[in-house]
């Protein structure tokens, strides 16, 4: 509970508080803010969508009812289209490339892309690279043809599955496990930690290690609230957040690897692709880029590709 006189910072997110990369980071942030800014500010974290889901939380933030949120980048569609670059298939080689791009000038500029909508991005938080799973082995792109994949509501992801000849299906997240189990949908895409955390691997034939896209979050605040803070408070908050970000983002590869191993330990099937097989997926999905080049900017794509060479 917060004391009188402290600035109350409500942080609402949708994952658990202790296992998921985002939940862990949020809990760490809460602990540090409440220790180091005691008497000035107080952070209350509401996990598991108990207060708001990802779509409502941005409305509530503009309304001033919540101060911190960290939706996944595809949830900002209504605010800006630049984050579509992270959904574009095979844009980034791995999570290190994503990290380097976000740290670059192009990436940093993206954090301010929503200021005219009243939302400011503070830090990117990683979850990891997305993998594909289905109720049959996915080795070549042709294997996905005709299958129904659950997608997050996102134009890019719809186009990506349509490029494979598959059928994208929107579905409330809470229904996905049951739908995969009974076969209402055939497959889905997600990071290792989500595939493990949601136990999707148990109801799928196997997961193919495609690393075809990035699933990242952006910690956001409303510009009105942020600009209204005392400069000292704002700086201290930004510093703590930055340190938490650096610490947790560095650990995310390990969380990811643990989840991957845990899937194997639990008897889940993981399929690795040969270079040739992977290239087939790239060839099948790459045409999607053209549809969205205007949204994300050719210069950003070029920057991302240049960085890929380093990894």
């Amino acid at each position, binding site marked *: *509970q917060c004391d009188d006189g402290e600035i*109350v910072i409500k942080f609402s997110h949708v994952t*658990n508080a202790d296992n998921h990369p985002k939940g862990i980071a949020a809990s760490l942030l809460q602990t540090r803010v409440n220790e180091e800014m005691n008497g000035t500010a107080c952070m*209350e974290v*509401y996990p*598991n969508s*108990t*207060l708001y*889901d990802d*779509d*409502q939380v941005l*409305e*509530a933030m503009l*309304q*001033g*009812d919540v101060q911190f949120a960290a939706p996944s980048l595809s949830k900002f569609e209504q605010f800006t289209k630049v984050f579509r670059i992270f959904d574009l298939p095979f844009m980034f080689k791995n999570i290190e490339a994503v990290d380097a791009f976000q740290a670059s000038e192009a990436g940093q500029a993206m954090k301010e892309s929503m200021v005219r909508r009243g939302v400011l991005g503070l830090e990117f938080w990683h979850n990891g690279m997305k993998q594909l799973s289905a109720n049959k082995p996915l080795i070549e792109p042709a294997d996905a043809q005709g299958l129904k994949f659950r997608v997050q509501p996102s134009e890019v992801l719809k186009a990506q599955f349509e490029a494979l000849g598959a059928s994208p299906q929107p*579905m*409330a997240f*809470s*229904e996905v*496990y*049951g*739908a995969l*189990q*009974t*076969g*209402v949908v055939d497959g889905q895409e997600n990071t290792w930690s989500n595939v493990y*955390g*949601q*136990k999707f691997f*148990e109801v799928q034939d196997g997961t193919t290690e495609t690393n075809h896209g990035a699933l990242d979050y952006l910690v956001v605040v409303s510009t009105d609230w942020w600009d209204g803070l005392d400069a000292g408070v704002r700086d201290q908050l930004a510093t703590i957040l930055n340190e938490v970000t650096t610490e947790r983002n560095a650990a995310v590869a390990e969380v990811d690897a643990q989840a991957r191993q845990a899937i194997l330990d639990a008897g889940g099937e993981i399929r690795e692709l040969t270079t040739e097989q992977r290239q087939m997926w790239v060839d099948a999905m790459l045409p999607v880029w053209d549809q969205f080049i205007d949204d994300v900017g050719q210069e950003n794509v070029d920057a991302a590709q240049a960085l890929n060479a380093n990894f």
Partner: protein
Amino acid sequence: MEVAILFLLTVGLMLIGVPIAVALGFSSTLFLLVLSDTSLASVAQSFFQAMDGHYTLLAIPFFILASAFMSTGGVARRIIRFSIACVGHFPGGLAIAGVFACMLFAALSGSSPATVVAIGSIVIAGMRQVGYTKDFAAGVIANAGTLGILIPPSIVMVVYASATDTSVGRMFLAGVIPGILAGVMLMVTIYVMAIVKKLPRGEWRGWGEVAASGRDAAWGLFLIVIILGGIYGGIFTPTEAAAVAAVYAFLIANFVYADMGPLKTAEDRPNLPLWRKPLALVTVFFHKDTKDTMFEAGKLTITLMFIIANALILKHVLTDEQIPQRIATAMLDAGLGPVMFLVIVNVILLIGGQFMEPSGLLVIVAPLVFPIAIELGIDPIHLGIIMVVNMEIGMITPPVGLNLFVTSGVAGMSMMAVVRAALPFLAVLFVFLILVTYVPILSTWLPTMMMGPEIVIR
């Protein structure tokens, strides 16, 4: 302590005759305004999100609609005939058949009051004609009607699943065995009472009647196969199953039984077959019966969702004040074991069930006790069934007992008379509650068999 005041205020408002929904919403809004810095706009957002943000709850209007088409469209009548053909010849036969018919209708309908109306309106009159007392008839149906929410599909299970993020499909499976068990316990009780009190029995009309009435009812009963088969066969999600059920019930009611809609004729003449009047395929959409049934289902949905939406505002208060975490900490620190915990849950729900409509109560209580249950290693599906059975009991206990309410209407008796009539069978449900609470395998065996063990994700 604030929470205690909040609950007292809510109950107080209800007792002076404020609608349940308004009592919940008004006291919660006062609390948000006084205790937190939450705006009225966020209360309005919660209200809107009750419908817009809870996809699972969509099953409610669809199941209500399916149920409405089946009662108006003659499914209930045929199920009763089939039930009488099967078990009507036992001592207390018509009463046993009433329970059996309630079980069958429960497998098509998601709601208990709807089950009472559909079956009770026919069976209670029939029982009186062959010599049962009105009290006995009303008591049997009020109780058996509660199976509407225990035997799948079930609106209350949908609400529980939505509130706790558990699987609706699992909840439905979990209700099958307890539902059958509860029905059998009621039937055995009636059988024993019938022998002791020498209650009337019907005559055995032979297997021919069983087959004939079964064939006649089959179109309606096939819905069970569609709902469960569709969900577990991977054709649709539980929410979609409800919509499919509504469409199917619409088709059966209008075109196969034709007890409503453009093909219906005067009482004593057989309804028209579709080929005699193919234009009905178009006119049915503009027919008064169609509109009236949809409108009635809509109205019921609205009153129910008004309560749930306001209960969600109260839940918003509890979340905002981090009450669930505080209660969880307090209870765990007190060294509570699973057995004691379940006793407490039962007591809370039984008391709450006296005042609240079941879905609204679940929306509030489930988030409070769920985290503790998980912490204590209680199966979330088992907890859900316990809650449903408590809600059943709440439905036949005053002052807020939806089943009492509709039974008193159907039977033309005062509420208190129905309460007295329902009492002996209520005892059976209490024994059943204890059984379900402490024998988890009754609830968990079937879902585990069909879908693997429940995974706790949190």
